[in-house]
C-alpha cells in the first residue's frame, strides 16, 4: 500500500514536472497560429515579460478572468523574456506563480517585421493585450485593471 502511494506520488510528480520545466518557445511564424483561432472561444492574448513591472502587476487579473469565464475564453500569456533569462528568471517565475493560463514564449529578434503584424498601432512597449474571437478583434496598448479587463472581455462574449 505504501509503495502504491509512493508510486502514485511519483507519477504525479512526473506528470507535473514537464509542465514547469519545458517552455513552449516559438518564432513569430510559430506564434501566429495562436492569434487566429477560429472557434467559438474568445482569446485574450497578453504580451508580457518578467522584467516588465506593469505586466507582472496585471497578470493576476488575467488569471482571475480565465478562472471567471473559463468556458468562454482562453487566456494565452506570451512571454517576451530574453532567452538568456529562461532558466534564471522565467522558469523560476512560472514555478513560483503556478499560472493556470497557458504560457508560451516568443523569441524572434526581427521585431520590426512582426510587431506591425500584431497591430499597426503597436510601437513595441509592453504590456499590450489582444482580444479576439472569430468575429472581431481589438488591440489594447495599455495596462488593465481587473474591472477594465472584464468590461472589454464582456464585449466579446455577450
Amino acid at each position, binding site marked *: 500500500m505504501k509503495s502504491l502511494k509512493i508510486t502514485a506520488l511519483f507519477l504525479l510528480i512526473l506528470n507535473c514536472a514537464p509542465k514547469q520545466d519545458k517552455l513552449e518557445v516559438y518564432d513569430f511564424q510559430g506564434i501566429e497560429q495562436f492569434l487566429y483561432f477560429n472557434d467559438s472561444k474568445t482569446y485574450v492574448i497578453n504580451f508580457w515579460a518578467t522584467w516588465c*513591472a506593469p505586466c507582472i502587476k496585471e497578470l493576476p487579473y488575467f488569471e482571475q478572468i480565465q478562472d471567471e469565464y473559463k468556458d468562454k475564453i482562453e487566456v494565452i500569456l506570451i512571454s517576451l523574456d530574453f*532567452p538568456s533569462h529562461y532558466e534564471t528568471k522565467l522558469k523560476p517565475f512560472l514555478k513560483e506563480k503556478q499560472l493556470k493560463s497557458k504560457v508560451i514564449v516568443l523569441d524572434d529578434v526581427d521585431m*520590426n517585421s512582426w510587431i506591425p503584424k500584431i497591430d499597426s498601432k503597436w*510601437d*513595441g*512597449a509592453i504590456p499590450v493585450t489582444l482580444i479576439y474571437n472569430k468575429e472581431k478583434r481589438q488591440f489594447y496598448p495599455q495596462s488593465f485593471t481587473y474591472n477594465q479587463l472584464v468590461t472589454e472581455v464582456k464585449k466579446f462574449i455577450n
Partner: protein
Amino acid sequence: MKKINLFLLTTFFATTLLSAQSGYDIGATATDFKLENIDGTFVSLSDFEQAKGFIVVFTCNTCPYAVAYEDRIEALNKMYATKGYPVIAIMPNNIEIKPGDSLDAMKRRAKEKGFTFPYLIDREQTIFPQYGATKTPHVYILEKSNDTNVVRYIGAIDDNYKDANAVEVKYVEEAVNALLAKKPVSVTKTRAIGCSIKI
C-alpha cells in the same frame, strides 16, 4: 472678450496636449530642452554649435533592452560625435517608480560603462511626451536645419537586440550615414520591444 480668451486658451492647451500625446512624426520640428546631465551641468541641443544633428536616445539603467544596447549606444557616439551627430541620452522614467534610474544611479552606470555622451534626466517628464517616446530604448535622429532640429528617424537602433554580432540592419547607422551624405533616409521608422516609460 474674456470668454473668447478663455476659449482660445482652452483650444491652445487642448491642441498642445493632443500633440504631446501623439508625439513627433518624420519631418516634425523637435523641441530643444535644458536637462540636467550626470556631471551636474545642464545640457541643451543649442549648446552643440558645431553639430549637424543629434542621435537622441531615450534610455535608462533598469530596462534589460536598454542595458542590452548600452555598448552599442556608446559605439554610436564614438563613431558619430566627431562627424557631427553626437548621442544625447535622456532618461525619462519616474524615479519614484524606478529608483534604479535616479541621477546617482545614472552617474554610477555611466562611470561603470565609460559613457562619453551626455546622459540627461527628464526629471519633470515634460520632454519625452513631446517627442512621443513610449519606451526605452527609443531613438530620434534629428537633423539641424537653420536653427531648428528636424526629426528624420524614429525607432530602434538595429534589428537584433540579442546579439550585436548578428545584426543585419543597423537602422541608426544607415540613417545617420544617409544624412551625412545628404541623402534621404530610406528606413525612417522602425519598431522594437522595449520597456514602457514609467510615469
